């Protein structure tokens, strides 16, 4: 049997080995989407790395890295959302998908940020980014807390 398996991966449907139990936790679509986005981000960044050499094309390289960056951002976003969904709804199982999606996306983010020069840009303007980064984070926390209070009050 070939393929890639992750430890903690929810059971595969219909593969005849470990079928899901009726009524058990169901894999989160958001978490799965996060992993897919992370894998796409890794794929795109890897593709860009594979083109290094005499045949390298700068436009293609930037396009791939930026696409990877965007996919990685989506992957991080979906991983975050999936983790919150999982906390609010025990029927939804994230398994390893949300974490792996986040890990792959962050890895791809680092690679694409480094190769596009964004990383240096971020480092140089670190204080600014910390300041600017706090605002969306505060908004994000506020959003999450509001959702949690709604859930308690219901």
């Amino acid at each position, binding site marked *: 049997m070939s393929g890639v398996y992750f430890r903690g991966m929810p059971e595969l449907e219909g593969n005849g080995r470990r079928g899901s139990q009726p009524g058990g936790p169901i894999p989160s679509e958001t978490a799965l989407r996060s992993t897919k986005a992370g894998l796409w981000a890794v794929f795109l960044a890897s593709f860009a790395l594979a083109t290094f050499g*005499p045949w390298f094309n700068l436009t293609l390289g930037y396009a791939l890295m930026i696409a990877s960056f965007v996919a990685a951002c989506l992957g991080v976003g979906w991983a975050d959302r999936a983790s919150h969904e999982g906390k609010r709804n025990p029927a939804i199982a994230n398994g390893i998908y949300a974490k792996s999606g986040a890990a792959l996306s962050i890895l791809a983010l680092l690679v694409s940020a480094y190769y596009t020069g964004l990383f240096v840009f971020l480092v140089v303007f670190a204080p600014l980014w910390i300041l600017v980064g706090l605002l969306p984070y505060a908004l994000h926390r506020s959003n999450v807390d509001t959702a949690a209070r709604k859930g308690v009050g219901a």
Partner: protein
Amino acid sequence: MKAEGFAFVVGLILFTLLNTSGPVAAFCVIVEPPTPLPTQVNGTQVEIQLTEGFARIVIIKEFYNPSDEPKQGQIAFPLERGHELITDLRLKIGNVVYAASAQNRSDALGAFLDAIAKGQDAALVQYDAPRDVYWIAVTIPPKEARTTVTTLEMPLAKKDGFYEYQYRLSIDARDSVSYLRVHVHIETVAALDQVVIPSHPTLPVIRHGLHAADTYINDTKSGGDLRLRFRAAGVSLSQFADPSGDRYVRFSLDATDPAFASSLKPAPRALLILVDASGSMGLLGRWDLAKEAVRKMARDLRTGETFGVAVFHGATVTSFSPSLEAWTPSVDGDLGGFLDALLPHGSTSLAAPLAQATVWARDARRNGQQPIVVLVSDGRPTRGPLDLELETAFSRVSYDSNMPVFAMGIRPANHDDETVLHNLSHYHGGELTTLYGGVENAVSELLSAIRVPILPGVRAEILGAGPSTFASANPEVVWQGGEAFVIARMRGTTNDSFSLRVTWSDPDGATRFTEIQSEGQDIPVQPLLKRQWVLTRIHALLEALRAREDSGELDEVTSLATDNRVATPYTSLLVLLPQRNQGGTAPPADGSLVRFPAFGPGGGLASPSGSGLSPGLFLPLAFEAQKADALQRDLANSLVQADEVDRYVDVGSAAAANLDLSRATSRYEGTYLRILELDGELVGLRSGALDTAQVVANAFGFVGMIFAATALARLSRRRTQPRRDPDDVTSSPPERKTSS
């Protein structure tokens, strides 16, 4: 400061123009750096005067500077050796004409730069050695016009009974905005027999009596170049005496003259065929054409004639046979096999086979044959000697061995390559034939252009006139289609009687002679004869100096050219106009313009194009692109593309350690590749170590791609939870729908 600035700009323009790569490939070219308002040539008027053995061309060009900045009108004259020399320059402003003075080359340049620094108008004719061109620089104030009057003169040699002159009219037609007028005046001492204008067959020729004819062109769209042929009937004897008491006499006798008839014996030919088998000859089907051409040349040989074939590439010169061979069918077969066995590869040094040619030439002379070099090449030397050094090498061999150099250009890639062959193939009456497809025609054309001596040792002696100085060779060799030609200077007047004896030997050794005796008043006066003597003498001295430097000859040519106002590689013509700005300042303190390589030997060479890489720490992708570009540039180098590199070695290898880089000459400096000329071959020195960062990135890239693609394929088969409202945390888990 304004004058200094102008001087600096002018110097910069001169420097830029003279260092522009690539030879100027046409006669009388206007050159200028790109500018929105280029110097304009309002019109050109050309006066061509032709007579027996001499041509004088006066080119009047009106320049206009339409811009608000002072400019230089630049005219480059890529004059062929033994052809025209610039013998006068005048500058016309309004109705005032300023004449030139001839000076030593470096003095003239210094005076010119001084003048423009002081705000003076000036014009200079100078020889640019690196590019082998003469150029005229004229300062033109804004919105003003300047008219240059340039005179060129050249001795004309007779070929097949005709004197021939060709003028590059197409260049003037291209540049001239308003008008292009050409007036040709032919006037001969003997009766003018025939005038032919092959380039303009419909052009009317207006005769004036027995000795003169005129023709006119008045059209800026005249199309091609102008080619004229004319001949005079009978013996040609003319004279001229100047007030200083010098008398000049010219006499010529056609090779076909009955006096020579019983004595003519064409020398058997020895064709020394030097075949370029470098990498570039392997492209565009050149090698097949070259092989066929060589075999056809050899097949043309008759009894008593021989040939040798030397094939050269890299440091290797391979001869078909160590000695000269006569052609036979079996030799032809062997020659075919020899050529078929060779595979073009490696660098091109056109001088490489000259040593072999010299040996064969000596053998040919011993056999009583006339050696004739035929260089078969595409004309792209990639290894030294190059440019002037290469021409000097060919010149030396040609004149030392007294043999013509012909060239067959095999599909030359561009005009520059063709020019290289053209410049190498004019010694001793050699010519260039270009082969693009029809081998039969090209070979016939080349073979029919070959002339051999038919009467050696023709000696002229002026009787009873005291010491005489011959500008023409004495004794001389009369070649097929040529003439016995004497031009000499002596003391006397035009009224003095003249007696000339020409002696030669029959093939059987019997001495023959012909005597010309004439009363002075019976000899027609030819006013251009002194100039003809001067030009012929200067050409002879220049050719001798090109072959071998001699201080006595150098002094003579400098003195002769200065006295007679002739621009040569050693003398220049300078026109200085009255100073406009008396408050002008001194030239740049360091005089650095004079030291510019454009004005000295060895200038004009482009520096190696190093391509240093920026660290690229901040933009790794851009850095990677720079590396890729550098590598592509290295691989796209013409020497690599044309397979002209003899061998490659990796940096750090044992072969690289054995290279003595202190003796190497760089031919290309790239990022990952250097091409060096060393020990007679081109060596490509590759950056041997792998680019570790690239290899690691590639490895990670491929592993990452495989991993991600496999995982995605697996995940695509997953059953997933339908999307729900993430905020709906109170709702129960979705029930699975079951059918009842």
